[in-house]
């Protein structure tokens, strides 16, 4: 079924269309939410809230193409997740102050396995990881990150750089040894 028609049916309150839409995008959205929350139970609750918001806000959405629709749904889900963790984040960004990492080993991304790269990112501290994922994976600007997490834009920026440095350090630790640098 065409996505646009499906959306129109969902707006009219067609439960079948809503179920089809849910089944089509639940995996994608759940994966997105889960990378921010790390907890499946919390992610399920957030998914519930996110889908309710998507169904109720569909009439306000102007369909252009499926990519834009997916991006919009992702944004709704991520916002719900960030709202859930907002109090936690406000504490995290005050306390997390890791020392400047020096003597970074430059590792070529080509030699890094995708699976291992994801695992490395998941090992990052919560604050760093969130900002890094928002900026790199989901395409948020630092201004948007600041507004979403209720932190200053500069804080977002510094958190991002610290996250990247930490990641590079980890990569250097792992792959530097492996390639003998």
């Amino acid at each position: 079924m065409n996505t646009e028609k499906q959306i129109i049916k969902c707006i009219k309150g067609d439960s079948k269309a809503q179920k089809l839409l849910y089944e089509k995008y639940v995996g994608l959205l759940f994966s997105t939410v889960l990378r921010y929350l790390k907890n499946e139970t919390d992610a399920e609750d957030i998914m519930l809230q996110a889908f309710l918001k998507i169904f109720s806000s569909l009439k306000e959405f102007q369909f252009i193409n499926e990519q834009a629709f997916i991006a919009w749904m992702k944004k709704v889900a991520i916002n719900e997740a960030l709202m859930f963790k907002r109090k936690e984040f406000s504490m995290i960004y005050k306390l997390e102050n890791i020392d400047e990492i020096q003597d970074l080993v430059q590792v070529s991304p080509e030699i890094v396995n995708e699976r291992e790269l994801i695992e490395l990112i998941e090992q990052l501290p919560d604050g760093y990881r969130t900002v890094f994922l928002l900026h790199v994976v989901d395409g948020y600007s630092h201004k948007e990150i600041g507004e979403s997490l209720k932190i200053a834009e500069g804080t977002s920026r510094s958190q991002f750089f610290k996250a990247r440095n930490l990641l590079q350090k980890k990569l250097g630790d792992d792959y530097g040894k492996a390639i003998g640098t």
Partner: protein
Amino acid sequence: MEKQLEHKIKEAFQKQDESFDYEKKDELWNRISGHVSRAKVVPAFWRVAAVILALIAFGVAFAAISISQSQSKKIVEVNYQNLKLKNIIDSLQSVNPEKIVETQYIEKEKIVYRKIEQLSDENETADIEIKSFEKEILNLNEILKNTSSELQFTRDSLKIAFANIEKLMNRNINEPDYKGPNFKLKTERVKDQLQTEQMESSPKMKVQLFKIQDSNMKFDMNSTLLKK
């Protein structure tokens, strides 16, 4: 190099998202559909509530209109009454008010304190003289009164004497030559009431005088009648 790493990370996560298969999606859908159906019930409830509210609003509006109409009628009536009362007040105001005159008699104030100024010595002697003159006048007045009363008494006695003398003189002049028996009639006692009425002369009370031939025979009626 950093950009390449970031791009690779993005691609890795996109691939993960696309390939992710959520196992509990049916359970989650049940929860979502439950919420959606409840969310559908809520608007239905609000629709019913809106209908009820509309009915209530209509009823209130109808009541308000009817109340306002009745109120306007009452206002007209009250205005009429007010006009009537104004007319009555005007008519009452045109009537002259009754004057009530109240006279109060107030007892004269008692003298509590009286200041008498002392006269000088000259005035005092003059006052004493005046008082003595007054006394003298009073005494003279008394004497005059006594004298005048004595004079009056004397004049009265002289008048009586003069009247007696006059009577005696008149008797001697007017006395007739008749030498018949002398008698006197006893004064008749009559009541005042009877005197006022016209009395018919009683034949028994008629007195006739008869001349007596015998001169020696004296008929003294007073001696018989009055048992003298």
